[in-house]
């Protein structure tokens, strides 16, 4: 078990969301899209070093810009 940010996760890795930093606006938006503390997500890919991150939450695929992806802390299984 280790705590890493979403951007540091490797592709095809699963993890559980531990923390989301960021203002209430962003928190709310995340919440309504199904991204919240305790939720399991799968990282799909990452474009470039500072690029956006694609994740799978439930049945939807979401793309997050690098900055917002950095605000999500994940508990990774390995």
């Amino acid at each position: 078990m280790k705590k890493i940010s979403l951007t540091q996760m490797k592709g095809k890795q699963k993890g559980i969301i531990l923390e989301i930093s960021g203002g209430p606006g962003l928190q709310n938006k995340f919440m309504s899209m199904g991204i919240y503390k305790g939720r399991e997500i799968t990282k799909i890919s990452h474009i470039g070093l500072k690029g956006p991150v694609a994740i799978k939450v439930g049945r939807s695929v979401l793309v997050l810009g690098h900055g917002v992806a950095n605000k999500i802390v994940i508990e990774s299984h390995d």
Partner: protein
Amino acid sequence: MIKKIFLVGNPNVGKSVVFSRLTGVQVISSNYAGTTVEIMRGVLKLEDQEIEVIDLPGTYSLEPASKAEEVVVSLLNEPAKEEIAVINIVDSTNLERNLYLTLQLLEAGLPVIVCLNMCDEAEHHGVSIEIDSLEKLLGVAVVPTCAITGSGIKTLLEKIKDIKNKPREKSSHRDRWQAIGLIIEQAQRLTHRHHNLREVLEDASVRPFSGALIAIGVMLASFEVVRFIGENLISRIADPIFLNFYQPLLIKLSPILGDESFLHHLLIGDLINGKIDFKQSLGLLTTAPYIEFAMVLPYIISFYFVLGLLEDIGILPRLAMLLDNLLHHIGLHGFAIIPVLLGLGCNVPGILATRNLESRRERFIAATLISIGVPCVALQAMIFGLLGKFSGFYVTGVYLVLLVIWVVLGVILNHTAKGYSPELLVEIPPYRIPALSTLCKKLLLRIKGFIIEAAPLVLLGVLIINVLLYFKLFDLFTGLFAPVVKGLFGLPKESVVALVMGLFRKDVAVGMLMPLALSVKQLFIAAVLLAVSFPCAATFVVFFKELGLRDLLKATLIMCVVALVTGTLLNFAIR
């Protein structure tokens, strides 16, 4: 008594398709979040009663996070609850995420009916939903539909009549997701499926290397197809019609009007070497219809056909992800690629689509870059018309110059424009095989839109030019700008008229440049100058409506500077 029906749902669940089915009003729908940026209204006849149907932009929740969502919430709260019905459109393939909004609607005490859309697709994905148990768990009617084929819409209409108000207790975000988890467990069954080709492609298109390859391939293929269809429509259909059927009629008309009469000048224009030349005569019956229907319309058809395909398959949001990094350098994020691509068809919908960008700064940068650096179909057809007969290098050259301007201007704006640029946060839809019927409907809608918008303006433009030319009113004007145009751009002073008329409507300008017998270099510079200026009067209007007078003036000033600098540089750089 129900007076209004609201269509509410997450982005990209097919609200607009349901709206078309209910009201018969055709609207554009695509496979990406945020196709609808305006609130559409239509009328539904239900047992002799007329009910207003309102199609709202997609929203994930009733706690507004963007401007579009604020509008949804305020509209829903406006009328008395007894007078409205809410059709909550839900994507059956993604029930869990969609139910968050459903629960919020119920908690708000709104009379809701749930429309489980895309049922056929859910089946393909191995998702089956038990309607009865979902109805029990939610406490409201649930109707499975497939709006594209129209199945289920009838049942939906029947159930609207006895819609009831079943408020749920208000709950916290966490409890809401927990409740959804329980509902899903009881009402949804998933059959495990092996990865199919579609999923493999979906995966590959969001990975850096394979994604870039796919994107480049798709883009190159798209340009080729647009060009191929456009060229063939012109050479095989439009040109033969004009030359073999229309021209003989005009040749008979010409002597009747009398060579030197004002009417002849107005309707047919000048005879070039004693003959009617559709590109140069500049008459209301000659050049005006030829430009619209034989030069621009064929490319409108081919461009929107291909764009429609890309939209409906679901390629655009994937491009947004791949380009996110690059677009950050010019103060935008990946999603801005969608307004830009729409702008390649016509700048007006492009600027409207910038509503999907959250911050004002982003909208200003995107709208300015679209109106200055993104040539619309009409403008591109003109570039081909002016430079096509020379080597392909010149046409490509115009695009290269535009690209350079785009990047340089973007970087400058990114460093100077005040405000903030938010980050990309968007859902990627599954790839879908487009339905031919929706593709055709969308294409027809856009062609109709083009003809209604462009034809009157082009006729008016040609009329104004002819009257001014006949009474020699341009001379004053050309004299005034001659030093700039002649001294800096190396163009004859008569081209001022074409450049200025180009602000009104680009397609008109080309007919005015043709008779001037410009050299290739001059044509190239003129084409670039036309390309960097606002494409038409409608662009000014929509820019003003969307961003206000201040921003319009700023963008216009930027446009003048860009034109001045680029024109001068090219004039002195090219030998």
